């Protein structure tokens, strides 16, 4: 991970983008629960959105995206 | 590098709350050996009740108070408490801390050339959490109603309506699980990150590989039991009914305060999801130690080192999808039992591969019958019996008759008693010179081995016949049943075997304590082994190695053709 100041600020933009994405997705999940649809579909939608949000948090916030080397080193 | 003591740590800091992996290893070792012996004493008392039901126990009969053994006769609830605590103490307080806490903590950093574990304070925290768990388990004997008495598996609803000892058991388990969890994080980071230069993953001694896979098992398998423990604590304390179905009537009293909706099978799934990887945690480090000792004492590289490593990794994965072969009898359909029977058959193959590899390592070797080697050699046939008797239990059809009988007890005790505990003895005799600089007495060692080997077979071999006859396990008095009464003579033989095994440990205990001070002084490498821990002085100082070693070759370079001596240690630069 390069530590130059410029690079870190690039991260900040990513964080703000993820933040807004998470907010909108939460609203979407709540709206999705309003739809009158078969319960199994409800579950599928809710989990898909939650899964996507989780991957966003993991990739960006937890820096998995920038640790290509770690992942290749271990597995 | 090793001498940067900026302050001399006080006695407490150095020995009690130490962060040195060697001191913590010894703390784990001594505590776990005491618990092992205590667990063994519990079973020696139970064997009296099994062999001579209802008769007053001689000598120590009336030491246990009127609530447990009025007039020296053991009550069934005390018998059940002893049974449950025997299982818990032997596994969670004795063998796992010995294999992972003591041997892993002491030997593994030395074998990878690291100065200490990656997180020393975390290492200390995990010992003291284990110690707290042990104290809570011991204290639960004195709680009104006695210790937990619904088996070491503590199946609800029996454990949900049990006496307060069960709550202490659950809290003790949460402490022990936290200790193993923290320990496993420490081990994995140390093995992966702190290997010295030149020590690639496939130059690691097999013992270190076994510890790595065991740590992954501990890391990923223990949390579900912690979750199950939390759920059962909620059941017992907050009145929830995770494991209690609707409409329970306990001795005539309709349980209206239970909301129902839970199911006892939920606990069994969560428990066995841990307990099967747990039994592999019990056996893998033992296999690691036996492999080390065999290769050193046959002066020959381990046959199929890579095959053994791939089998261990495969064993690690498979152990997570095998758990329900403990639950064939809970009303399972053919689909689920077919899946788990198949995975059980598949998982028996890597164990056979590892065992065969170790036996073939003897071929064309120059076998030295030292005391650790005798224990390691005895491990092989005994583990074979343990493994083979797993087959009838793995197939659902034959499991119908054999489930929950003494056959099961014979099966897993053959794997654990002459298997893991003999490997532990082998490890103690093998690494004692490294820990104290002195060796254990050889003749006392031979006596200890010979008698232990004989009596351990006398205890557990008859159990297969009892199991076939249909004698159920955890029976306070087997003579109540006709099929139990017919084989009561076998129970008497087993009981005498157990008491004799108790006597056979005395030479070892004497040998252990005397040799610390009065044992014969030996060099740093008495067994002429190649792995890194023998290059450090014994006992190794605080930073382990005077100069950081560099590794040039694999761990088993014995009898290399054309070399000057019959072993070339890993850290020696290439021969002149």
């Amino acid at each position, binding site marked *: 991970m390069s530590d130059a*100041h410029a690079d*870190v600020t690039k991260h900040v933009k990513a*964080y703000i983008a*993820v*933040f807004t994405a*998470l*907010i909108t997705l*939460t*609203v979407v*999940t*709540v709206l999705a629960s309003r739809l009158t649809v078969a319960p199994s579909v*409800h579950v599928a939608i*809710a*989990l898909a*959105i*939650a899964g996507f*949000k989780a991957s966003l*948090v993991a990739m960006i*916030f*937890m820096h998995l995206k920038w*640790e290509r*080397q*770690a992942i290749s*080193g271990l597995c | *590098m090793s001498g940067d003591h900026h302050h001399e740590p006080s006695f407490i800091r150095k020995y009690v709350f130490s962060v040195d992996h060697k001191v913590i290893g010894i703390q784990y070792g001594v505590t776990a050996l005491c618990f092992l012996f205590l667990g063994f004493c519990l079973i020696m008392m139970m064997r009296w009740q099994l062999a001579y039901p209802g008769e007053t126990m001689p000598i120590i009969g009336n030491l246990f108070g009127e609530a447990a053994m009025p007039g020296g006769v053991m009550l069934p609830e005390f018998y059940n408490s002893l049974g449950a605590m025997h299982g818990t103490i032997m596994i969670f307080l004795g063998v796992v801390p010995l294999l992972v806490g003591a041997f892993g903590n002491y030997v593994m950093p030395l074998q990878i050339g690291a*100065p*200490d574990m*990656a*997180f020393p304070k975390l290492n200390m925290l995990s010992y003291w959490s284990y110690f707290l768990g042990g104290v809570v388990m011991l204290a639960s004997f004195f709680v009104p109603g006695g210790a937990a008495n619904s088996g070491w598996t503590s199946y609800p609803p029996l454990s949900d309506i049990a006496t307060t000892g069960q709550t202490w058991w659950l809290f003790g388990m949460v402490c022990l699980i936290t200790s193993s*969890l923290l320990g*496993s*994080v420490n081990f994995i*980071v140390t093995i*992966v*990150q702190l290997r010295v230069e030149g020590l690639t993953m496939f130059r690691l001694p097999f013992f270190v590989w076994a510890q790595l896979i065991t740590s992954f098992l501990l*890391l*990923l*398998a*223990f*949390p*579900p039991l912690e*979750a*199950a423990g*939390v*759920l059962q604590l*909620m059941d017992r304390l*907050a*009145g*929830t*009914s*995770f494991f209690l179905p*609707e409409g329970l009537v306990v001795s005539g009293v309709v349980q209206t305060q*239970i*909301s*129902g*909706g*839970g*199911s006892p099978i939920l606990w069994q799934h*969560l428990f066995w999801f841990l307990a099967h990887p747990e039994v592999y945690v019990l056996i893998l480090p033992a296999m690691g130690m036996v492999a080390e000792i065999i290769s050193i004492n046959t002066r020959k590289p381990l046959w199929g080192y890579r095959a053994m490593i791939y089998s261990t990794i495969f064993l690690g994965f498979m152990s997570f999808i095998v758990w329900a072969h403990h639950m064939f009898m809970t009303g399972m359909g053919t689909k689920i039992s077919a899946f788990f029977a198949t995975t059980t058959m598949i998982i028996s193959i890597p164990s056979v591969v590892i065992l065969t590899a170790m036996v073939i390592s003897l071929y064309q070797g120059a076998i030295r019958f030292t005391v650790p080697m005798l224990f390691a050699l005895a491990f092989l046939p005994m583990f074979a019996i343990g493994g083979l008797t797993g087959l009838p239990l793995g197939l659902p059809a034959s499991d119908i008759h054999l489930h929950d009988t003494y056959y099961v007890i014979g099966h897993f005790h053959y794997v654990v008693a002459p298997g893991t505990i003999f490997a532990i003895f082998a490890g103690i005799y093998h690494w004692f010179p490294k820990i104290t600089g002195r060796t254990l007495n050889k003749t006392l060692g031979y006596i200890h081995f010979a008698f232990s080997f004989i009596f351990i077979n006398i205890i557990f071999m008859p159990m297969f016949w009892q199991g076939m006859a249909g004698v159920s396990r955890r029976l306070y008095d087997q003579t109540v049943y006709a099929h139990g009464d017919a084989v009561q003579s076998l129970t008497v033989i087993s009981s005498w075997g157990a008491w004799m095994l108790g006597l056979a440990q005395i030479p070892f205990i004497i040998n252990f304590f005397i040799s610390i001070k009065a044992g014969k002084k030996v060099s740093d490498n008495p067994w002429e082994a190649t792995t890194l821990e023998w290059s450090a002085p014994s006992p190794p100082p*605080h930073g382990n190695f005077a100069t950081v070693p560099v590794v040039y070759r694999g761990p088993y370079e014995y009898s290399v053709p054309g070399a000057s001596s019959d072993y070339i240690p890993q850290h020696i630069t290439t021969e002149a």
Partner: protein
Amino acid sequence: MSAEVLPYTVKPHPVTGLYNGKFGIWLFLASEVMLFGALFSTYIFLRIGAPETGPTAWPTGEQTHLSWKLGGLNTLILILSSVTMVMAWVQFKMDNLAKGRMYLIATAVLAIAFVAIKLKFEYMHKFHLGIKPSTSVFFAIYFTMTGLHALHIIGGVVVIAYFIGPGAKLWHENREYYTNRIECTGLYWHFVDLVWIFLFPILYLL
């Protein structure tokens, strides 16, 4: 045994690219995934096992007495706290202690707000209605999962408070070591937020 003696405590390992702390926290999060995984599978086991009708049927919608508004609010709070946590790490990376510490305090305050909402509005509200974990299996699993999650959040707050207060001493000794530790705390924090992201729809919406 001071830090520099153990290799790769601060500098990342050449092969794995991780320093010890980060590797350790990721392993710890793996075990936490198994812990919450076990609780989620318990939830699924109980929900599938629940009969359609009768006293132990699975409550949905109004019968759960769970207001999705409070749940939604808590989700937003946690997402915000995740962002402030990562911004704190960014500030420490850019060497200004004051701003970084301010973000840490923001994270701690948001976390305490989350716990306060959960305890004050959700738990007390249920206790007043006479709903306890023992009322039904749904409330049992609800209280257990959200309770354990709240305990994890409180644990996180304690660690963050340590790094705001006494932990900051390390900043002056070894700046990078302190930032790494903040990053590990951040990883743990994002994981806790991640668990809530799954908890919220399952308990509140479905």
